[in-house]
């Protein structure tokens, strides 16, 4: 068994303490240790974006990052977007615009979309496309994904 170590970080707004093998990637800590299965494994090598999370506000592929590197940092996963009362506006826009089919890539896609919209209130369609370049969807052809993001940007939410 690999060497384990204890780390402390904030996850979806709450402090957590967890013991993880030093070789474990953040994706598998989230899924297998913390039971947050919204973040998906699809390629495991940073090519598809299904495992996208926020780390100190930036987006990262959690499959490429060691879990121990979460120590002392702020992590937000797809589960952390919605409030008790309502879906996050980006999540709601994806639902309303029919952007979700099988949905497997969507947690990563929505986290990335939220990051893009949050950091650029005048996000253009071209900038959206560039910002989503690292997120593969096999179902939708992206059109409705872009429509959903555009609606959020337009509403200023």
């Amino acid at each position, binding site marked *: 068994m690999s060497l384990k170590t204890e780390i402390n970080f904030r996850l979806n707004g709450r402090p957590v303490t967890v013991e993880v093998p030093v070789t474990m990637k953040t994706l598998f800590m989230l899924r297998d240790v913390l039971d947050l299965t919204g973040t998906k494994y699809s390629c495991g090598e940073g090519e598809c974006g299904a495992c996208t999370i926020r780390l100190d506000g930036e987006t990262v592929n959690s499959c490429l990052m060691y879990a121990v590197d979460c120590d002392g940092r702020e992590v937000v996963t797809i589960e952390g977007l919605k409030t008790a009362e309502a879906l996050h506006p980006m999540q709601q826009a994806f639902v309303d615009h029919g952007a979700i089919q099988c949905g*497997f890539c969507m947690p990563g896609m929505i986290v990335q979309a939220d990051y893009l919209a949050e950091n650029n209130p005048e996000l253009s369609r071209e900038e959206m496309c560039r910002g989503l370049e690292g997120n593969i969807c096999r*179902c939708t052809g992206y059109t409705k994904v872009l429509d959903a993001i555009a609606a959020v940007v337009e509403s200023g939410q």
Partner: protein
Amino acid sequence: MMDQKVIALPIEKTTLIGQRVKKPDAPDKATGKTRYINDMLLPQMLIGKILHAGRPHAEIVSIDVSAAEMLPGVHGVLTGKDAAGLKFGFVRDNVALKEKVCCEHDEVAAVAAETEEIADQALRLIKVQYKDLPGIFSPEDGRKTDAPQIHDSFPENKSLHFEFRHGDLSAAEAASDFIVDDVFRVHHVTHCCMGTSCAIADFDDNGKLTIWSQTQYPYNYKMDLAPALGIHPGDIRVIQPPVGGAFGSKLDVYPYEPIAALLARKTGRPVKVIYSREEEFRSAPTRQAAVIHMRTGCTRDGTLTFRSADVLLDNGAYTSWGPTIPVVMMRTTSGHYRVPVIDFNAQAIYTNNPYAGSFRGYGNVQTTFATAQQMDMLAEQLDMDPLEFHLKNAQKSGETTPQKAFLRECALDECLSTAAQASDYTKKQKQYALERDQEGRYKKGIGLASAIHNAGGAKIHKSDGCGTILKVDDYARVTVITGASEIGQGIDAVINLIVAEELGVPLEHITIVNNDSDIAPWDVGVHASRTTFIAGNGARRAAVQARKQILNAATRITGMPAEDLDLRGGFVVQDSSGTKVIKLEKLLRRMHFQPEPELVMVTDYYEPNSEPEGADHISDHSAAYAHAVHVAEVTVDTYTGEVKVDKVTSAQDVGRVINLMGLEAQIEGGIAIGLGYALSEEMRLENGMLQNPRFRDYKVLTAPEMPQLDLHFIESDCSEGPYGAKGASELPTIVIAPAIANAVYNATGIRFRNPPLTPEKVSRAIWEKQQAAREN
């Protein structure tokens, strides 16, 4: 007071048909709450891992699993002898675990262990000694007289063979003024479902297997899985958790599924097998590669005379459902255009390549890549406006194709005119052809293609039906138990919409149950663009029965004639005025709590009126057929060979729009898969070994590469379809690639018969053309 006032307001008649209805599964998928099969855990569950051969063709001289068996945490190890004789597959040529290696991903051994780490370690402890054999890596090589034979029971490496002849070919050739004659080489691609393949199996102590599966055809799946385990299909329960994509890939049984079950039987514990992305690439089924020799003739006035197609297909190592695709190729060799004489011959050849499966478009993608380019070539030879040539030969309503497809409602004319007008096709096509040889790095091109596909199911089994059970409870909540599977495509939203339309209840008051073969009735599965048509008809018929029962009860209670009653907004209303008569849930409780209690529970089995296919596979096999036309506009960078698709104009006969949002989503997604086929996706195989088993090297298109889309839905009002609808989801994948190839020809004057049109291929062809021009 308020309540009475609200109740007093009449409810207007509205319709949901053609509206935008949200998918009921979308909110949980957006928040990460949905537990896909990939996310599932069961108590005591073990992880199953497979040892793949990693070589294309070999004898297994010896296999030693003793060290793996001894490893702490390992609960079971299986090898070929554990599955010996348990043959499965379309022609029973496959087994879960192999005693001889016929392709790279062949399953040689499997382990079940407490963790993935231990399972991986156990695999490394298995010692296999192989004797490599010469392999066959193309269907042409498989036909050579000195070719090694892959399976003892299939001489000359011949897998399935199909042929169809109609009319006098030599007379038609003689009568032709123009004949185009081309060899198209279409390549291997794979589905790239975002959720990798996964199965969880568990036996109860009565010997009944429960399998959590990604399957998109749960009932035939039982039949196909049973022989791989030596059990009765009736002793299998299939549960379908949410899946991360399917696209035809889950229309079969693959070895990892019986392996999960065999490991579960051996260990007495639930076993989950889940693929890594690399395993997924190496082990997944492919869209079948083929060499298509096609000839098409026409007379000087532009009337088609004949079409012949000699097709050689790369079966791969085993016969899954994939090698049956020539049936669809055969049926779609004509049918968009009137071709009086047809000569079709297809032979699938065993090779040591990965084996072919079903993939959205099912053979028609390959055929249409050839037929739609030959239409373009003939128009040029005739010096005729391509649109005029297409319109002249387009099939019309009431015609029957030589393959016996009766085109009851045919809207190809309208699809052609709509797509051409919306894109200004004729003008641009002429203009770009003139600009082709002028100076300039970037060349624009426009291309048109059309296709026909079955759009009312496909009666390839004895029944093409779907069962529905519908109940309405005391709170006016509706449960629809349907055989139709939800694989992300949106059938739940369609059924919701249809049932809400008939019963006048809010969409959110309807629950769909369709994930357990012990509960849901028979259905043939998600394939052949059949689900909206077949399951939609079933849901409507069940809802209409329930509606009648409810309105009859309302008549008994209120004395108002049933003809003047309607269900709207959760109320029984007077049809003419919309005035509320009684709240639906109140009526339902009154029906229930009376001396002769009555519950609303209805069943339906909808069987389309299509003809079962005979031994020759020729019949009016679908209850409807539909056409689609795509016009693609491209910019070709002649320096780099990059083809940028700027815009796609689509006109498709959908019969009638049911859920507008779902329909658009299917067309958009279908185009995206077809674009990848046309431009970038390719399984690069060298001696049967996949060279690019990762997204870095296998290019799936992402958001920046998507063109602007202009979608037009032609409503031909199909007399058999639910509210007039036809199936729709495969046509966009089928028709886009040749539209792009025709557009690239328009831009460059170069004909590409071998997709994908990668920058390397296109720039090389441009360079060769320029060299040839310099030399002349």
